[in-house]
């Protein structure tokens, strides 16, 4: 018998039973204790942990609204949104930034430039958990490769994002402006809630001016995420309100024609529909590809653009401030007639120069030897400087300043064109303030032919021309034609901001228009070549702006002057004369003479708009008929 059995006594057994009872009690107490703990967590504190659990898994995400589209007057899309797939990183969720980027470099093409931009944005202030894009415009192959490696790359996401795209970018960059990434300053300014999911903001032009309605209202979605922040499903969604679409007055065909006409040169064209003030074309040549700016232009590309001698980034139409030269004469003619310093019949003798007094400095006419006897009609048709020197001195600076102000010079009269400059309309006070000098009569002489201190933008010239076409009735220039949404157009485009220019004798308008018609169609008209053989009548005025001044008697030879120092060629005009549909201002930098370079450009635009694009053919026919009557009366 084994020894264990030998000492198996009842006492040992009872001892074991007692100890077992102790253990059983311990077990019962402990298991009950665990259950009590569970009861505490699951029943008493259930609500707290339910909230914690929901907070864990449910996140509120913003849903950016799609940006409003922009159409031209014929419904052609000028600015749309294109889905672009980009790979983004959330620094808070990435383990090992350098390592992750190195891994991504094996999967995708990541250029030095991408890395540079990424690291720059990594250092910039940003919202927590905001993703930082590393590369845009992923190919299908790259998206597939990323999907395969996704589990190895926490914090790395492929994001589909609607990004602004300008299908006709080179043509419309200056007219529309563009959007770009929200920068630090803008971050301070914008409503953080509404822009919670938005990465882009209008930087210039229409995009900037109408940012508020183009942007729309942000939406939200409650999403279930896992511990790594990956979205698993959408629980609840409040859709964003898309931005409202804009329809512009701009006509892409005319805009394109304007670009073609200036191709290879530097210049600007602004075309306005006089009746509405709608800007039909706003061209600044050379243009640039605004799409490059949307996702962030590379340093190299930006340098190429900004350092180009042709200054493609410079918006000549809105910000180019040129001496208007003789294109100011129609406005001055109105001023001179209405202020009674001249009449339609007043005639002067033009010897080829003008002197304030017998021994004074000679102000030359553009034509050596002068024009001889000239009245206002001749002075306009032949662009006689001497006539305007004289009336300018007679009017004096105050009168000229007053009238020219009414034409919109010296101010930004446009309603919704952001970034337009005001030019410079000189006055006594201005000269005193800026130069600490009195206004000399010689300054008035220069102002009489739009030279000297006076500066105007092509938009201002077109606006003033449009006012003549409207016979004094203002319709402020504007790009927006209609908002396809709830916002009324009137919110942005007030009914009228300028008083009409009323003349003592309203018939003076017709007279000045006729002098401009003479420029185009008259026997001696400076733009008679440009106006020849047309089925409609047009009014215009050529101009030549000196880039640098010549001494009094210095001879001037365009051939000898380097191309960049040649005069700017200008032209303003409108057509048809009696029922104006289009008013234009053309400037060709260093183009030489206005009549030889700028006027033919305007004629092409008139033809395109009135004949080729078939704007209301019936009204054109009636125009031609009325021209016939006019012809007969002359």
């Amino acid at each position, binding site marked *: 018998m084994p020894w264990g059995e030998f000492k198996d006594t009842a006492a040992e057994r009872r001892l074991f039973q007692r100890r077992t009872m102790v253990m059983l009690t311990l077990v019962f107490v402990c298991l009950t204790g*665990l259950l009590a703990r569970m009861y505490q967590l699951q029943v008493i504190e*259930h609500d707290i*942990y339910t909230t914690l659990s929901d907070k864990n898994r449910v996140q509120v995400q913003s849903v950016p609204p799609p940006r409003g589209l922009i159409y031209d007057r014929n419904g052609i899309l000028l600015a749309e949104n294109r889905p672009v797939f980009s790979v983004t990183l959330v620094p808070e969720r990435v383990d090992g930034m350098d390592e992750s980027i190195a891994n991504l470099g094996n999967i995708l093409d990541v250029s030095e430039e991408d890395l540079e931009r990424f690291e720059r944005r990594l250092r910039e202030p940003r919202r927590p958990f905001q993703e930082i894009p590393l590369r845009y415009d992923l190919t299908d192959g790259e998206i597939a490769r990323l999907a395969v490696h996704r589990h190895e790359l926490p914090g790395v996401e492929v994001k589909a994002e609607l990004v602004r795209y300008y299908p006709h970018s080179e043509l419309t960059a200056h007219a529309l402006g563009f959007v770009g990434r929200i920068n630090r300053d803008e971050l301070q300014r914008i409503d953080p809630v509404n822009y919670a999911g938005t990465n882009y903001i209008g930087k210039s032009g229409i995009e900037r001016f109408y940012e508020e309605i183009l942007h729309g209202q942000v939406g939200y979605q409650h999403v279930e995420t*896992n*511990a790594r922040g990956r979205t698993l499903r959408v629980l609840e969604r409040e859709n964003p309100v898309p931005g409202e679409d804009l329809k512009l007055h701009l006509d892409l065909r005319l805009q394109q024609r304007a670009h073609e006409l200036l191709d290879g040169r530097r210049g600007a064209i602004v075309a306005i529909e006089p009746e509405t003030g709608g800007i039909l074309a706003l061209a600044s040549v050379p243009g640039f590809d605004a799409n490059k700016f949307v996702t962030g232009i590379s340093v190299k590309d930006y340098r190429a653009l900004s350092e180009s001698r042709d200054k493609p980034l410079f918006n000549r139409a809105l910000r180019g401030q040129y001496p208007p030269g003789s294109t100011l004469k129609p406005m001055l003619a109105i001023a001179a007639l209405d202020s009674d310093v001249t009449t339609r019949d007043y005639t002067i003798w033009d010897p080829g120069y003008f002197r304030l007094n017998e021994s004074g400095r000679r102000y030359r006419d553009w034509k050596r030897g002068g024009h001889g006897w000239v009245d206002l009609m001749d002075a306009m048709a032949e662009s006689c400087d001497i006539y305007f020197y004289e009336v300018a001195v007679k009017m004096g600076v105050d009168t000229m300043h007053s009238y020219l102000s009414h034409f919109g010079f010296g101010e930004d009269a446009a309603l919704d064109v952001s970034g337009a400059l005001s030019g410079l309309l000189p006055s006594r006070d201005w000269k005193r303030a800026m130069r600490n000098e009195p206004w000399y009569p010689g300054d008035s002489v220069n102002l009489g032919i739009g030279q000297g201190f006076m500066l105007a933008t092509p938009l201002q010239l077109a606006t003033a021309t449009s006012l003549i076409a409207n016979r004094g009735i203002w319709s402020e220039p504007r790009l927006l034609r209609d908002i396809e949404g709830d916002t009324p157009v009137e919110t942005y485009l007030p009914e009228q901001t300028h008083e009409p220019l009323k003349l003592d004798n309203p018939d003076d308008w017709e007279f000045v228009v006729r002098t401009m018609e003479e420029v185009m169609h008259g026997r001696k008209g400076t733009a008679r070549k440009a106006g020849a053989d047309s089925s409609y009548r047009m009014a215009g005025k050529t101009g030549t702006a000196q880039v640098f001044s010549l001494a009094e008697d210095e001879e001037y030879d365009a051939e000898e002057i380097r191309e960049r120092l040649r005069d700017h060629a200008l032209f303003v005009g409108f057509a048809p004369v009696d029922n104006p549909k289009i008013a234009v201002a053309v400037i060709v930098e260093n183009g030489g003479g206005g009549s030889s370079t700028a006027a033919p450009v305007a004629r092409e635009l008139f033809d395109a708009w009135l004949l080729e694009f078939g704007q209301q053919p019936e009204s054109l026919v009636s125009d031609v008929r009325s021209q016939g009557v006019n012809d007969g009366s002359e």
Partner: protein
Amino acid sequence: MAANDLVDSAGNGGLGRPRGIWAALHLDPLLLFLLTALVCGGLFILYSGADRNIDVVKAQGIRLGVAFVVMLVFAQLDPAVFRRWAPWLYIAGVGALIAVLLVGVGAKGAQRWLALPGLPRFQPSEIMKLVVPMMAAWYLSRHYLPPRNRHVFVGLAIVLVPMVMIMQQPDLGTSLLVGMAGIFVVFFAGISWKLIAAFAALVGVSAPAMWFFVMREYQKQRVLTLLDPQSDPLGAGWNIIQSKTAIGSGGIEGKGWLQGTQSHLEFLPESHTDFIVAVLAEEFGFIGVTVLMILYFLIILRCLYISVTAQDSFSRLLAGALTMTFFIYIFVNVGMVSGLLPVVGVPLPLISYGGTSGVTLMAAFGVLMSIQTHRRMITA
């Protein structure tokens, strides 16, 4: 009492004594039923805890199948075999632990495995969960019980040597279980309450010293985290916060099977291993936890009954200690997951995925069945 047992073993149908086919297979049908219920329920929870990965469930099924075979084998052996082999197994086990400390392999700074040529890789510390109580029971049952003080100290030495060696690997969870298994033997043997009080006082006094001189930094961190999980919510406190959130959000009825958001959305770490009870609590609520606790309690109850009715002191001490080890698993694991105890690597017995602990546990149940079914046929 003794007479009753002898009558029972003669086949007169005492309480729950196996008969017929069960006696022939040396299995206890009641315990087998309870274990089977636990294991099957556990596989369902595992499927959810492993985020519907059926491969994990299959692997666990195979592992548990092996464990049942091991149980069956152990049940066939007579308790006397365990008693005879106990000293030799103990010497071999301590030798293996020395080998682990010298040439063991492992990962994450812990050496736990022994890869001997010609043998599969194994974890000697796991075997010690069985061997240490066997050895302690062998030693103490050689003398009259209750043991004299010197026998108690020798018995404790038998326990402490392998326990400290396992702690050096380091493997706090296993060393705790091995130590508790041995100490339960000493307790069941009848150590005097005075001595128990003295040991308790000694532990109380030495605890600060342990804190400063013995415990490693990460172990201290676990204790601190228990006291204030919010101090490091994304680091050490993450597990506790997430498991408490999982349990608490389950409520009374739970979110439903496979509907737990905490575990399926990867917030709950180790959701199919050590923290699996949080999955149960989240998906089946307080009701599910209660059912599990009752099932565990019934198993313990049956095992303690087997211990009490065992025929000799060695069998009683061994059976009692193995039962209480099983209880320690439950208490430490659930206490840890519910934020009552510091995080120690102890799985939920027979439900958590992986490890060799399932095999060891089933071997222990095999020993219990062996004790229950191998009876001396002594007639009066």
